[in-house]
């Protein structure tokens, strides 16, 4: 099958990697650093996606997302918790009906996506029905790589319909798409099919989020905005572990898409270990010295 999306711009690998690296050279200090770190916390989808997840583990996660640090540090809550579909109702129970922290659920045969559409839709409906306000679906990479872009498009559109009022994040699993041209094209298809967010990775495949891949997706979002006026969100996930990295991503968002995207409504970071590194930096900025890891609660 030939693609109907063949005319998206191509990507030059060398220059896009160079441009992505240039954002890490920004020197973010003092007040800008503190503001950036707090913003990063407010954009984190605090994630646990393991076979061994239990309601108890999710309770830890929800509590941590609601109040990441001692009140004296004035740290906002995280944007969301991200869990498997079976744990959504537990998360809802711990967070209550009206929570500042949203519930995101992976779905559609996460992480591989190699399941029938029927079960993918059922999964999506159930997760949304259990209280997931955000659905993180995976695309059918097999279909994409086989050139069946229409199939990928239709599946995303169907999942979007199954989401009801829940927001849809579409995971491209860029580590399996490999080339930037593929990432650019898959981004375009996902946005046209109805994605509210596009997301890099499941976290189960290496490499997960990288700065150049994220930049390619941000540029796709920019072109889509120029063409339609619609603002699509971006979520790099996996591999962002340090406060410094998170600031570099924020710089990239700010300088690629502008200030309007510097909000949890349009930018998220999917991470599990990042939060405490950011908190450590916030505490250091406030107290003037580093504290040991034991002073920060794990989730």
């Amino acid at each position, binding site marked *: 099958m030939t693609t109907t999306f063949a005319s998206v711009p191509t990507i030059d690998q060398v220059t896009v990697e160079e441009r992505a690296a240039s954002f890490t050279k920004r020197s973010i*200090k003092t007040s800008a650093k503190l*503001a950036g770190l707090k913003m990063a916390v407010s954009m984190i989808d605090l994630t646990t996606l393991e076979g061994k997840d239990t309601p108890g583990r999710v309770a830890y996660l929800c509590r941590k997302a609601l109040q990441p640090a001692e009140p004296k540090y004035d740290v906002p809550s995280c944007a969301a918790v991200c869990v498997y579909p079976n744990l959504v109702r537990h998360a809802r129970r711990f967070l209550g009906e009206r929570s500042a922290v949203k519930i995101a659920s992976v779905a559609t045969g996460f992480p591989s996506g190699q399941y029938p559409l029927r079960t993918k839709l059922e999964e999506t409906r159930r997760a949304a029905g259990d209280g997931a306000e955000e659905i993180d679906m995976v695309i059918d990479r097999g279909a994409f790589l086989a050139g069946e872009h229409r199939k990928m498009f239709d599946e995303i559109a169907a999942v979007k319909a199954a989401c009801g009022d829940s927001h849809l994040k579409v995971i491209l699993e860029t580590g399996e798409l490999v080339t930037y041209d593929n990432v650019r094209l898959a981004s375009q298809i996902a946005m*046209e099919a109805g994605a509210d967010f596009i997301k890099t990775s499941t976290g189960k495949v290496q490499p997960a989020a990288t700065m150049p891949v994220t930049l390619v997706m941000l540029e796709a979002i920019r072109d*889509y905005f120029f063409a339609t006026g619609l603002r699509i969100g971006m979520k790099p996930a996996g591999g962002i572990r340090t406060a410094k990295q998170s600031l570099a991503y924020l710089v990239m968002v700010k300088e690629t898409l502008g200030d309007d995207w510097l909000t949890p409504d349009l930018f998220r970071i999917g991470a599990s270990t990042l939060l405490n590194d950011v908190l450590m930096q916030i505490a250091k900025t406030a107290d003037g010295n580093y504290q040991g890891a034991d002073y920060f609660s794990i989730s």
Partner: protein
Amino acid sequence: MKTAITVKKKNGLALKPALLARPVTPVKKRRLEFGRRWDYAPAPETVPVKIDPRHELFIDGKFTAPRSGQYFDSINPATEAKLCEIARGDGQDVDRAVAAARRAFENVWSRAPGRERGKYLYRVARILQEKARELAVLESMDGGKPIKESRDFDVPMAAAHFFYHAGWADKLEYAFPGRKPRPLGVAGQIIPWNFPLLMAAWKIAPALACGNTVVLKPSKSTSITALRLAQIFQEAGLPDGVLNVVTGDAATGTALYTHPDVNKVAFTGSTEVGKIIARACAGTGKKLTLELGGKAANIILEDAPIDQAIEGVVSGIYFNQGHVCCAGSRLLVQEGIYDTVIHKLRNRIQTLRVGDPLDKNTDVGAINSCAQLEKIRELVRCGQEEGAEVEQSSCALPSKGYWFPPTFLTSVTMSHRVAREEIFGPVLSVMTFRTPEEALERANNTPYGLSAGVWTDKGSKIFKMVGKLRAGVVWANSYNKFDPASPFGGYKESGFGREGGAHGLSAYVQLT
């Protein structure tokens, strides 16, 4: 400046209505907002530097007062504050310097084995690396360029040129198989103000590697780092007279290139001065290389990776405030993607941070001098009068110092002055073309021929175009990439001779 922006749905951005999963509600304003939220705090480079209030000439291994006793002020273009005084060398100072260079050539340097010369050059390269931060700060204070560039480009590249040529010093015979290279003698080198330390390194390193000695004349507005380099030579223990630095103005330069005991003249600067030097050197037996102006075309074809091409355009013209002889100052865009490119460029220049050169987040620094700022203003004014439309970054400019915002001009035709003359500032002239053949014709339609850029996803097009562009350096899907191993130089009024690589060595030897 226009603010309303419309995007034609081109280049794959057009939506295919059949595929839409939801209705599109078009909004009027599709411009990105930069700057309100989360602004970066100042991040000044803090390494302390000491600038002597008075800088002397460097002759025969010693810092020495000019015979005339005259000095001129060196100004920080970002603040208009006086940095220090620089000695004004005259003809007699040049005489002393050339005599010292001659003695060093005859008695020491031309006789030293290649590995011995290489040893000194390696030492200089290492000291440059050790003092990198200090040199970067000095370069930014003296010339107005952002610390990001002096730190990441000028200083490391200067060291790289010494390393590279140190490696050649004992291998010259292999550079010219079957022939014997001999040094020329005393090289008189005159360098510009846009990359003061780097141009000094670029000129001195090959000259010394090949066994010549040097009298260097830095530009009047940027002498400090060349003199700091002279200190480094002292520290590295180079024999007296191998390098001499005579600061001053145009008269000092004239005394140098007309000096009868100079064997080789190397000049980087304006085409106007280059022509004068060429006339003066004609018939004297002096070997000459000229690296002069440019008006490079950066060509974006329809199938180019557009977002990356925009980055190349930005680095091509706004790098070092556009004070770059190989700057991509003419942008040639294929008509089908013109609106897309302009729209993206307009948004992109808003993110360039203009201001304090010593702030690590500054992308575009100060214009090098008041005179240069006037020249840029004059040419942009002329462009407007001839019918060009001016698009500028809306950034705030500091109240003191010499500043010009990142600018591009549209509705430019090939006969506009801004399409033909070198502006040497952050000003890009945008024009269109319909076919690759037309792009080539327009790109080559200039008296200059230093550099060019081609952006396309198709390799075969790159090779086809590169072969037909009359420019010394052609970058494909990149711009402003440098390496000491890669020869650099121009066609036509951009000069002759090559610098860097094995080609660059041949300018400093006679072959027998």
